[in-house]
């Protein structure tokens, strides 16, 4: 614990350094990055060693605060597990930022950005170590606030401001729900300590959980509370998107998980709610991802999808616990945790790739990109690896987490009817999500990196600086390593749920054999691919290799604009989900005999955003505007208000 706090101090010191040396741009970046990363690495070493030592004793620390409260911190296996991505991704994102934050004219702002980055990292670490209400909320709010500043880094752009605004509201609204949830808990327990939460009456648990689920869910991005994600992620600088999407939204997951464990509710409803939400979130998330043309927006929706997958895993685990199905619970939870870790890596990788593209090709719209694989080979290849990983395809990391969830879900197929239906839904949903995610990421990779550049900017793109590419290569390799040698990482996830009493002690030896088989299969597959590659080389030896234009099916003058676009690629698939996804087509029409230039636009609108606007925000604003006459400026009536107030109150006498 002391090491952890020491590491947090170093991280914060890094943030302070940024503010102090704001004038010397490069020095400031280097010093901050090194200091903050050093802090992260200390923390990482500490949490990993604690996590893997199987040390069951709980480590606690507390201080008195404001006479009333205690700031209590406690470390158990789940905490440690969540600390790992925090401390892993942060230094990577920081190193990446060295070249990404290259604009010396924004030196002060960059320094502020690093400062809040450090605060964000520290507050996330505090969120997962908090052991009572006050500490948790304190860290939670700090996290929201600091991440808000990170989002509005490029505040000159109106969309970014709007995104920051939306995020701010969701953060605060979610926090208010959490306040309410914790207040209800306090009402029953009379203290702030997490460990007493399970004592509250069973009837209140569901309400508390739902409030907390909505509160945490708004941070995590469950459907329909996800709408800030696709706005905030494109707005933030890419390494910030990476850390937010890779790590920060997982704090919502942590909260849901923690709350579930603390409440220890007997009602099966909780697991069912989580599972169904996960399914809805996952499928709709990926469908929307498919429909978007802005890479970062697409990645944000993909984060929503992955939150869905994680929630499916978690829901499987919860259903498993409520039906006393230990295997289901164990693998559900472990799968969810492992996916948290995996997603943090490949999503960060993808965001960094997107950032690299944005940096060099000056656009995020995939319909204006293309051909980047040749111009930015390292970014392209690492992005490809990330795409395969996020689609959950072996032999990359995404598959492993999903496999665990599948495994848990298959164990849920038993005679319990609700359980069976839920498990089947989960399995089918995972399959559909996997298929659509593959479609989605073939779209990004295929259109942005392959083919021909669609615009000048894309054609002139160059590879990014070494700090960016090195990090991306490292992360891509990590994705592959986790996919091929998953055992230590699965053990990590198992260690993560070690402290959950209802599933601990599950015998994993049998499963470890399967894991070894998976590992072998993956290796074998890679071997087979290599073999076929050699064979192909052999077959092409001494043969004539020609090159020419793409076969245009007889058309002789193809241009790059004739390439298939992302919009067309996705049109049919998203059309399939029509009631849940709004496709707005605008067509200028043909009016004259000799038609002039006509336009046709297609845009995917978020159904929850639209309905939120239509059913909540607009009536609310309208309703509030109806009351504006109160302050009409006439003093006579102001005095009349007082008289009316008196008379009204006298009736209560």
């Amino acid at each position: 614990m002391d090491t952890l706090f020491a590491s947090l101090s170093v991280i914060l010191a890094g943030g302070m350094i940024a503010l102090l040396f704001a004038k010397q741009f490069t020095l400031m970046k280097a010093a901050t990055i090194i200091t903050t990363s050093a802090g992260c690495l200390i923390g990482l070493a500490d949490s990993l060693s604690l996590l893997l030592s199987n040390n069951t004793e709980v480590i606690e620390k507390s201080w008195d605060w404001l006479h009333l409260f205690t700031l209590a911190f406690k470390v158990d296996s789940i905490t440690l597990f969540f600390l790992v991505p925090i401390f892993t991704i942060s230094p990577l994102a920081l190193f990446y930022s060295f070249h990404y934050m290259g604009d010396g004219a924004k030196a002060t702002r960059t320094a502020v950005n690093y400062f809040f980055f450090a605060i964000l990292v520290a507050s996330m670490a505090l969120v997962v170590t908090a052991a009572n209400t006050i500490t948790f909320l304190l860290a939670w709010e700090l996290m929201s606030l600091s991440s808000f500043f990170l989002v509005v880094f490029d505040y000159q752009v109106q969309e970014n401001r709007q995104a920051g605004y939306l995020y701010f509201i969701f953060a605060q609204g979610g926090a208010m729900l959490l306040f309410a949830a914790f207040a209800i808990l306090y009402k029953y327990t009379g203290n702030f300590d997490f460990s007493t939460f399970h004592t509250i009456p069973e009837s209140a648990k569901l309400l508390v959980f739902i409030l907390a689920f909505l509160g945490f869910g708004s941070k995590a991005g469950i459907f329909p509370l996800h709408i800030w994600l696709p706005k905030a992620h494109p707005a933030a600088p890419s390494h910030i998107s990476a850390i937010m999407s890779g790590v920060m939204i997982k704090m919502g997951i942590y909260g849901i998980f923690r709350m579930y464990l603390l409440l220890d509710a007997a009602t099966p409803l909780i697991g069912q709610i989580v599972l169904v939400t996960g399914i809805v979130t996952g499928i709709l998330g990926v469908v929307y991802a498919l429909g978007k043309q802005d890479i970062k927006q697409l990645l944000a929706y993909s984060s929503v999808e992955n939150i869905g997958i994680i929630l499916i895993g978690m829901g499987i685990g919860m259903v498993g616990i409520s039906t006393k199905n230990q295997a289901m619970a164990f693998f559900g939870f472990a799968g969810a945790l492992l996916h948290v870790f995996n997603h943090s890596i490949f999503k960060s990788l993808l965001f960094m790739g997107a950032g690299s593209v944005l940096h060099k090709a000056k656009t995020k719209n995939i319909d204006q990109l293309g051909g980047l694989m040749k111009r930015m080979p390292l970014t392209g290849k690492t992005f490809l690896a990330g795409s395969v990983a996020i689609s959950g395809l072996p032999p990359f990391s995404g598959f492993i987490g999903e496999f665990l969830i599948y495994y848990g879900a298959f164990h849920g197929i038993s005679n319990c009817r609700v359980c069976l239906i839920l498990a089947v839904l989960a399995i089918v949903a995972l399959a559909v999500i996997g298929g659509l995610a593959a479609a989605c990421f073939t779209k990004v990779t295929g259109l942005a990196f392959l083919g021909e550049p669609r615009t000048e900017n894309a054609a002139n793109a160059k590879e990014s600086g070494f700090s960016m590419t090195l990090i991306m290569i490292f992360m891509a390799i990590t994705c592959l390593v986790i996919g091929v040698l998953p055992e230590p990482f699965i053990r990590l996830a198992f260690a993560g749920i070690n402290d959950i009493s209802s599933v601990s002690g599950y015998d994993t030896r049998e499963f470890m054999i399967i894991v070894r088989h998976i590992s072998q299969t993956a290796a074998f597959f890679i071997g087979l691919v290599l073999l076929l590659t050699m064979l192909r080389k052999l077959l092409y030896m001494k043969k004539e290799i020609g090159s020419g234009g793409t076969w245009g099916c007889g058309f002789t003058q193809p241009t790059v604009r004739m390439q298939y676009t992302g919009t067309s690629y996705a049109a049919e698939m998203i059309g399939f989900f029509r009631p849940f996804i709004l496709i707005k087509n605008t067509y200028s029409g043909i009016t004259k005999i000799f038609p002039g230039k006509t336009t046709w636009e297609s845009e995917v609108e978020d159904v929850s955003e639209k309905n939120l606007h239509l059913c909540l925000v607009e009536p609310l604003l309208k309703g509030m505007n109806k009351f504006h006459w109160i302050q009409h400026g006439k003093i006579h009536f102001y005095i009349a208000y007082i008289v009316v107030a008196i008379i009204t109150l006298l009736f209560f006498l």
Partner: protein
Amino acid sequence: MLEFICLIPLFTGIIAMFLPVSIGRVILVVTALLHLQLTVMAWIGKVKPGLPYYFSTSPDGLLVLLVTSFIFLVISIYAVSYLSETEMTSEPIYIGCTLFFLASMSMVALADHLIVLWIAIEATTLMSAPLIFLHRSKSALEATWKYVMICSVGIALALLGCFFVVLSMEIGHVTEAITYSALSKVATQLNPTWLKAGFIFLVIGYGTKMGLAPMHTWLPDAHSEAPSPTSALLSGALLNCAFLGVYRSHQLLFKAGLGDFSSNILIGFGLLSMLVAAVFIFNQSGYKRMLAYSSIENMGIIAFGVGIGGLATYGAMLHLIHHSLIKSSLFLSSGNILLGYGSKLIANTGNMARLFPKTCTAFFAGFAGISGFPPFGIFVSELLIILGAFQKGRTISISIFILALVLIFAGASRLVMKMCFGKYKQGVLVDENMARVLPSYALLLASLILCVWLPDSLYQTILSAIATIGGSTNG
């Protein structure tokens, strides 16, 4: 003598009226220092009241006094720089009235007698009125007129409330002194009907001054039209004094066993104020008006917290302290913004992050603080109020409370973001200046420090202040 706390500013105020401006400014700051020193001595208990029949030190009064005194010191430092920038025509009057204003506020904080309290509160209105209209612009005059009329009418009703309380004494054959401290000892003997009627008039009367809806109507006008140091004083200090009147009355009813009655009224007013503030903060066009409505909201929160009782009362008291600190800081920043852009309209501001980075930092930090983000104290106070309300089972009211908070946050953050980060094409009039930024920082820092470390004596004082209405920290 305790009365010196009121008399010194009164005396120096008279002097300052007749002296040149440069000396007047010095007098302002020196008096503020002296006042703070006396206040601290009163805290320690070194100063005894000379007229114990009229004045005494109560924990709630001391709390308000300390906050007032501290804020006044910081604002007076700001005012010196602000005044030199604005070249006000009748500056000696301004300085004098500011000091009178301090005197009357101190009197409110120290008054124990029902009617002396009333006199003091009425005096605050009269003393602060010149501060608002010294600009002599049309809107400033209008605002002052509304302020004086509405508050006078409201406070006149409070006098009737005082009479009703006295009547309830007579019916109950109580012959104690008409002081809050004496009455609360024999509160159960008072006639409940007339006491309740008295409370209604008192809460309406002082509530007018405090800015509880629907009697709040003067507040946005006065706060937005006053010079920024005055706005800061009005919002950070005056509203607390008015609150003190409401609080004392509530204490009396609580002691008389009518706590439920007064609590419900306070909760009702509190929620109504928050909702009204929410309505007007959305699409607000002026930033000072926005801050004014935010004051209405926060007064509503305090009334709500006091009404809930228990843990929420503690939260309300913390809220009072932190709101004063943060809101005055915000108003001071708004003064800089006004100087810089020359307009009170949000539409005519923007891009503060680049143009006025220091002010922007103070302004945004203040906004974050007032919205309940750590590391500022409102985070704690709002949390405590929510906890307390749930503990008391007030589910519906707390739902409205939370809804209003979110609405206000949504409304205000949009405007604040527009100001801090939005587009702005024109040039700026006056650059920011360390002397005018540091006071804002000082106030924020005070809130921050109090959120990290609450001195024991302060804590104990709050505890004894809330103990009189059954508030405690363990529910």
